[in-house]
């Protein structure tokens, strides 16, 4: 296991909480590059290779990538207590901020100025999500069957409003089977 560690001492539960607390506070619009810098370069809790390997699992499993990463790092060093400390540290500041924004919205939502401000904010954040979708779509250009699955999934969930569970139960195994057939 020694080669996975980044040279620093094994962090305490409190250090895990503080490390991820800082990450939650500064991570606007994408925590991933900041997480790598904090874990590998600044605090040297893990090597670059261990980071990539752990991130691979975080992206593979359901759940937010950074949330899974905090759980994995906490578990590796301090077991369940470490995982809880890292996860609550990561979530604490963003939760307080998002509820603060929610209170503000709730209080001033009848003010026409604030309504227009939030309508503009919502329209811009919809644009950010469209960009995310387009950037994820680009690498699929050369995978014809992949695009078919993407189109079916989009039509089912976005247009026909089919629930997520049956959609996943049909399309995920189908897509994995096609991938297996194309690579075999």
């Amino acid at each position, binding site marked *: 296991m020694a080669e996975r560690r980044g040279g620093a001492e094994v962090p305490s539960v409190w250090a895990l909480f503080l490390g991820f607390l800082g990450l939650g506070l500064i991570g606007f*619009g994408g925590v991933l590059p900041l997480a790598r810098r904090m874990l590998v370069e600044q605090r040297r809790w893990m090597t670059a290779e261990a980071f990539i390997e752990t991130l691979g699992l975080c992206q593979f499993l359901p759940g937010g990538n950074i949330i899974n990463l905090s759980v994995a790092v906490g578990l590796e060093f301090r077991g369940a207590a470490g995982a809880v400390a890292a996860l609550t540290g990561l979530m604490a500041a963003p939760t307080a901020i998002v509820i603060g924004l929610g209170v503000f919205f709730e209080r001033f939502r009848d003010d026409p100025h604030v309504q227009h401000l939030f309508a503009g904010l919502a329209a811009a954040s919809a644009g950010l999500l469209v960009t995310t979708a387009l950037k994820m779509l680009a690498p699929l250009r050369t995978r014809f069957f992949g695009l078919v699955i993407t189109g079916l*999934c989009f039509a089912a969930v976005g247009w026909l409003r089919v629930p997520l569970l049956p959609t996943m139960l049909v399309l995920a195994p189908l897509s994995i089977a096609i991938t297996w057939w194309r690579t075999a």
Partner: protein
Amino acid sequence: MTGVLVSLAAIFAELSLLAFGGGNTTLPEMQRQVVDVHHWMSASDFSAVFALARAAPGPNLMIVPLLGWRVAGLPGLVVSSVAMFGPSSILMGLALGLWRRFKNNPWRRIVQAGLVPVTVGLVAASAAIIARASDGTWGLTAITVVAVVATLGERINPLWVLAAGAAAGFVGMGWF
């Protein structure tokens, strides 16, 4: 109240284990449950909550505690957060050891690559649903289009885009 909390727990616990490819893939189902099934808020309110969550720092699932809080106050916040982040975290703990063992197994890569098209379809559906609910007027649609164009090429901090969108909505009120 208890009934609402049980519903929140059930919705987010299911989404927790279905959130392959990160948080944005669960938005269509979240919106369907909160708006269409339970009528806790309107579609445009859901988009406003999503926008608020985007404006906060941290992981992109910050919409979950905010939705819980809007629906059922502090208990809703706690129940929704634990239901959304608990099950996937426990799965993470169970999978950590197995992952190292199967790291070089070819099946792992096939499953991972096979899930990508589904993930992309879900994120595209999220974008369509949120955009449709956010863009009630031509002016707001224009803000969305400008935000897409601005962020497609250059690496620009999304906070600036959100601030510019809010300013444009504020200044343009009455015109569109």
